[in-house]
């Protein structure tokens, strides 16, 4: 059962996590772990962080009852509006926390990997805010498909390095960011964008993102007078999901559902569903579910959503999968596109393609499908869904995909 003492001293969530890294970065991870443990206990650090979340990010983010979408799916759907955060996604919560830590540690150069560009944008934003040098690694394919974010990142004074190795997506950007880190370890702070990587990152990213669930739980109690039946979030590396779920882990009556990217379908081999179709392995510093072949070579994932296009997942999710506390499902590219359109048309909210995966699950998932949608008087299940980001960045992809249908 997940609890506050996760991870253990070695950074393990059950058997997952740890520190599988080149020796050169071991000292940096130890230094970071120590610095973080001190900082998170300090009133001043916590105040600085929460002041910025309020005044700069715009927290708390609203919990919005999506009436028309609810009617469509036959559940009372409350959207946790992370899309309304400054920079348009949940990523900024984590970036602020890590940047504050970087400054405490005297690091003036920041690097980050990005897929959808949301983490890159959030990192470039906090670097502008604090006057830090910023380099963003981004797969060349993602530079193309998330062009609007690239322009913003560069405008904010950060340097974008397109990565041309491998599939030219998030995995390869992460490799390159790690290589930079190994090389510039003494001056550079690596702001990892999801709850992945070597200890202490999965723990630290979870903690910084936990504000989502803390607020959502309080808002639910205030609004519904009770906890929701379900909490649903999309899972790439797993930061928005663990961020919203962390506060509900002990509420055993609340069912937690993580939605992975099913790409062209689970049997197509072209997906990013590490928890559903992967096995435990080691990539980017931790032991966790991973997509790899019989030779141990990492399989190139696929998702229409750049932010979910990653072969691994954070180690805490692996643990939560094995314990059964969270169930992990997947939806296809197509289903995500349908949900993207549906939310736009019935709520006037254009969701990120990543978040659209979570939305799509409400439209197709077996927990929701079987309900009789029209029968009045029947109590509909209540759902809090993490709307992790806004979809402006995805308009090109969606238009392209529609053209092809």
């Amino acid at each position, binding site marked *: 059962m997940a609890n506050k003492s996760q991870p253990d001293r070695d950074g393990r969530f059950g058997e997952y996590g740890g520190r599988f890294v080149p020796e050169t*970065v071991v000292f940096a991870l130890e230094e970071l772990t120590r610095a973080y443990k001190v900082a998170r206990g300090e009133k001043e650090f916590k105040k600085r962080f929460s002041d910025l979340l309020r005044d700069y990010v715009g927290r708390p983010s609203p919990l919005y009852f999506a009436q028309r979408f609810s009617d469509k799916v036959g559940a009372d759907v409350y959207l946790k509006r992370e899309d309304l955060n400054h920079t348009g996604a949940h990523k900024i919560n984590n970036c602020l926390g890590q940047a504050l830590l970087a400054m405490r540690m005297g690091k003036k150069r920041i690097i980050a990997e990005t897929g959808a560009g949301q983490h890159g944008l959030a990192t470039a934003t906090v670097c502008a805010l604090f006057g830090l040098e910023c380099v963003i690694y981004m797969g060349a394919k993602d530079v193309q498909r998330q062009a609007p974010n690239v322009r913003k990142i560069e405008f904010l004074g950060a340097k974008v390095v397109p990565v041309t190795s491998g599939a030219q997506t998030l995995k390869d950007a992460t490799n390159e960011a790690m290589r930079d880190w190994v090389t510039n370890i003494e001056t550079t702070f690596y702001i990892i964008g999801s709850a992945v990587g070597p200890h202490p990152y999965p723990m630290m990213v979870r903690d910084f993102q936990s504000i989502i669930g803390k607020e959502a739980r309080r808002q639910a109690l205030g609004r519904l007078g009770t906890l929701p039946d379900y909490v649903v979030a999309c899972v790439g590396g797993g930061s928005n999901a663990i961020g919203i779920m962390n506060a509900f882990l002990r509420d055993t009556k609340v069912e937690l559902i993580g939605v992975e990217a099913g790409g062209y379908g689970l049997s197509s081999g072209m997906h990013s569903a590490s928890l559903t179709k992967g096995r435990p392995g080691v990539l980017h510093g931790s032991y966790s579910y991973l997509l790899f072949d019989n*030779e141990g070579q990492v399989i190139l994932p696929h998702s229409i959503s750049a932010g979910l296009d990653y072969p691994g997942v954070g180690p805490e999710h692996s643990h939560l999968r094995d314990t059964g506390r969270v169930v992990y499902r997947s939806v296809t590219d197509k289903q995500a596109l349908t949900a993207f359109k549906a939310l736009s048309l019935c709520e006037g909210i254009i969701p990120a393609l990543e978040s659209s995966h979570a939305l799509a699950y409400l439209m197709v998932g077996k927990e929701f499908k079987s309900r009789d949608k029209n029968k009045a008087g029947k109590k509909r299940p209540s759902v809090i869904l993490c709307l992790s980001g806004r979809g402006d960045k995805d308009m090109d992809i969606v238009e392209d995909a529609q053209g092809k249908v």
Partner: protein
Amino acid sequence: MTISIAHKFKLLKTSGRKALIPFFTAGYPSLAETEKLALTAVSAGADVLEIGMPFSDPLADGPAIQVSSFEALKSGLKMKDTFSLVERIAGKTGTPIALMGYYNPILAQGISKFVRSAKSAGVSGLIIPDLPPEEAGELRDIARDAQMGLSFLVAPTTGEKRYATIAKASSAFVYAVTVAGVTGARTTFATRTDDYLRSVRKAISKPLVAGFGISDGVTAKKMALRVDGVVVGSAFIDLMRKNTRATARARVGALVEEIRKSIDSLDSGRNS
């Protein structure tokens, strides 16, 4: 008959010589060519060979070794091909061989099965750049039982307190990474590299080799002065990328000879 790496280091010590350890990626530019390159290197004076097992995500490697890994995998190289390559080289040369590779392919095989296959192919040692001693418990037990050498890495950023842990976990030799960075040929090193190697040397009595960035006789000699041997890798791969196979092989042979001569010109007993 192939001798173990540990035994090789004893012999070298007795004769007052430094170990020269060329690195080649299995399957680059082709499996047959890797074998020829290894034989060339041995005739030119290599003492131990390091063979790289390609991985899809070599995050401790610079462009040269990355390209060699991707090319090898693209050609369809499997782990069993690497093992049979090792078997052939060991059979023909008797030179001890260490395998260098990332952890996931080893895990995917199962650690026991991997170590058994490696052992029967004639592998004498393992170097796993993304596996620090703290995460290697199971592998250490299995390797000990199988008498498979294990080499862990020290880096310029390693706290001196960790030296003992790393040395204790290492059986064949300890691998001192010369620079904070990825693999790749360099022509210059920070002046503090020398201080760092001295302090590692002082703390570690097991055989100690230096690697990452060593590209020619000059850099090799500088490092060899402080340690028991040098690993040279990317410099060879750069030659392969720039030349036809026959030319590359000749140049690799010449570079091995140059480094051999250079490190042999060090007086024995000066590395303190």
